[in-house]
């Protein structure tokens, strides 16, 4: 029985019965065909695909068309607007006291808070930790690592927004040195409004917007596209939001001195549109080119619906298609599909049932993986989120361990 010390700063260690990393036929095949990075991407995809468009059902149901209702960034995520912070208590959290949603739980006091608001300062930050678990007849493996720890500062002045994020992003599998206190994002945006549209022109360092129903920067999508853990690049983007639709169009390029996995030029476009009261559809395209000559192009499609009855069910269907071309290797077409069904059991508590299907290479049966998952997402109080998902995983063409269990729990605190 082998014991493997998981690298980096894992807080927990499980017993590993076999060294599945070297014996798993599926993974070996993938390595041979597409290289380690791509195989890793699939593994991470399995972990994180469920978090795609997380905000879609909850927040769209409450009338949000654009991410800028609650976030400074038109692609969502990061520092919250005053309204967004307020809604974290009013919509998402199960419990919450007066001013609890404010920065540092309201410890700054109402007067200082008000002053910060008046000055247009938006403070924030995130700490995310992930506990993973994987088990089949040959392996039982788990790991806890800090995914994210950063601070964010935004300034809103009339039609201008400036944004800075600094902190740590950790890749548990990487042998690269940890990067702390680097600025993962910094940008300036001009966003004039008309009666029917809010425009935005943004320049700086940020991830290009990609996704179906909402902008999606999840690790899964980035890794599947062979991007580095941090997908922020020097980018320029124009965006728009109206009563029914949002759209973004952007280009990015590597800055001088970029790490090797960030040496990439890309073009991305996405649009989504709602119709009737409870339907929304979106599509996104990506074309990227790395300095080693490999290219990646992808499209992402999503359709969602929700009902304001009973347990407020929602349904999402998403698909991601990707073409990778690398010198001296044949084109590889991958796809992943997700059917996600959720219920708001009570405010702040969501039950999730989902089915995933993916093929790292559509021509390779062995790359097929199907997942049947149950999950729970809890927002107990403002600033806290716990998200857990358990998957029964089926690899129909694997020679060993056609069934296994995978689970993860994300603990998230935001400032």
């Amino acid at each position, binding site marked *: 029985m082998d014991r493997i010390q998981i690298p980096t700063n894992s807080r927990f260690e499980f017993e590993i019965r076999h060294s599945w990393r070297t014996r798993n036929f599926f993974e070996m095949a993938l390595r041979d065909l597409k290289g380690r990075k791509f195989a890793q991407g699939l593994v991470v995809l399995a972990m994180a695909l469920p978090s795609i468009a997380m905000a879609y059902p909850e927040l769209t*149901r*409450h*009338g*949000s*068309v*654009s991410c*800028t*209702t609650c976030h400074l960034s038109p692609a969502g995520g990061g520092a919250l*607007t*005053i*309204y967004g*912070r*307020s*809604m974290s208590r*009013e*919509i998402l959290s199960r419990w919450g006291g007066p001013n609890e949603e404010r920065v540092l739980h309201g410890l700054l006091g109402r007067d200082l808070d008000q002053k910060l608001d008046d000055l247009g300062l938006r403070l924030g930050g995130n700490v995310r930790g992930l506990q993973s678990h994987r088990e089949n007849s040959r392996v039982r493996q788990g790991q806890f690592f800090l995914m994210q720890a950063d601070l964010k500062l935004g300034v809103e002045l009339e039609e201008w927004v400036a944004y800075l994020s600094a902190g740590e992003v950790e890749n548990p599998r990487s042998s690269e040195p940890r990067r702390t206190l680097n600025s993962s994002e910094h940008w300036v945006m001009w*966003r004039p*409004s008309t009666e029917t549209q*809010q425009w935005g022109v943004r320049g700086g360092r940020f991830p290009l917007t990609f996704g179906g129903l909402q902008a999606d920067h999840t690790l899964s999508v980035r890794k599947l596209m062979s991007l580095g853990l941090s997908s922020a690049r020097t980018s320029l983007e124009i965006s728009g*939001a*109206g*009563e029914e639709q949002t759209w973004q169009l952007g280009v990015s390029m590597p800055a001088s001195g970029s790490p090797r996995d960030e040496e990439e030029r890309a073009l991305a476009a996405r649009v989504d549109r709602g119709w009737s*009261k409870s339907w929304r559809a979106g599509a996104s395209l990506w074309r990227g080119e790395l300095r080693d000559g490999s290219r990646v192009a992808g499209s992402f499609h999503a359709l969602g619906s929700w009902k*304001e009855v009973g347990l407020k069910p929602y349904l999402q269907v998403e698909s991601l298609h990707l073409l990778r071309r690398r010198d001296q290797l044949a084109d590889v077409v991958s796809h992943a599909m997700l059917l996600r069904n959720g219920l708001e059991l009570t405010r702040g508590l969501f039950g999730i049932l989902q089915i995933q299907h993916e093929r790292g290479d559509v021509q390779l049966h062995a790359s097929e993986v199907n997942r049947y998952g149950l999950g729970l997402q809890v927002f107990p109080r403002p600033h806290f989120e716990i998200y857990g998902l358990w998957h029964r995983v089926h690899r129909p063409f694997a020679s060993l361990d056609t069934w296994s269990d995978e689970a993860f729990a994300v603990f998230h605190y935001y400032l």
Partner: protein
Amino acid sequence: MSNTQFVVATLRRVVGERLEAQESRSSSNLVRAIAVLAMLTSMSTACQYNDLKAGSQAASRPGSSGTAPQPGGGGSGPGPGIAVVDYQLVREQIFVPHCLRCHSSEAGGVRRGGVALNTFAEAQPIAASIAEQIETDQMPLRAPALPGDLKALIRAWVDGGAVEVAPASGVRPRLGDQSNFRRSKDHQRTLARMNPIRAVIQGLILPSVSEAKSSLASMPQVYELEKASLEFLAIGRPSFLKIRGEGARPEGEFSVKDGEIQGIAHVDLRSLKTGIELRDEHLHERYAQTDKYPKAELSFQIVQERIGAIMADQSVDLQISVPGRLRWREREHELPIQVQRKKSQVEVEFKFRLSDFGIETPQYAGVKVADEVQVKVLSHVRARKLDQ
């Protein structure tokens, strides 16, 4: 009153009016009832002759010259007080709602079969053919057959000479009151030759039913809102946040009489919810002040020919824009209202400005609500007939 009773009462009323028109004004209700029974009995026993008699009788009504007009307008022309159907009326009541979708010469229109009915010059040469196709339900194609009164209307137009404009001496009939339409003996004889049974149906029963319908249309009727709901949509700027409110149940009714509908609905705004407790609190306490002004009143009036018959006939979809009036917070404003009826479901939609009702612009945490708010009332309607 059961449906049967209502139909009998309506028939009695129609026939009663006819008897009155024949100088039987002093007849008692009992005599009218006997007359109805006698008429129904005679219809079932000697329908062919009754058909013609009925037609003759119609032609010899007071106000009619009693002279059969000549087809093609070559006769002596209508006498004083005789209603003449002209192209404008036919266009308005038949061609526009039922025909022009497929037979239009306008730019962007469809001209199926090479036939267009936009102008008198286009319709007049083929008037007889149009009437025949409508009467035999060949037209409108892939759509419900036209009701009897409209069939009678186009027949009256053709029989009256398919004129473009009614002579000044003629009386433009109101639709639904087809007792004034002239029906030629030739036409009825033709009908009788074609098929006696159909002749009876077209010559007697349909007009009777049609008269009953028109009578229905002219009788006051009250429709109540049933399972009504109200929702509003406001837009929060600058991110176009959609704020939807619902939960209020409007109550109201509208009455139909002759060519007029008057409607009124009251809604208790205290039950409105927007999905966020804090927002509801702000809505009710700070902006709408529903404790002080709990109810809003929406009223409207529609004046349109045949509106009663349209309301009674649920197979006809209705979509109109009418002037309405919203009363709320001790203020009153006129606004256009869109009314759409599909079967028994009615959808009323309108927009109003918060500032018109003295409501300050709602804003919260950087989100400012646009002044214009869209309101939609969805309801089924249930007829409540008045006992007469």
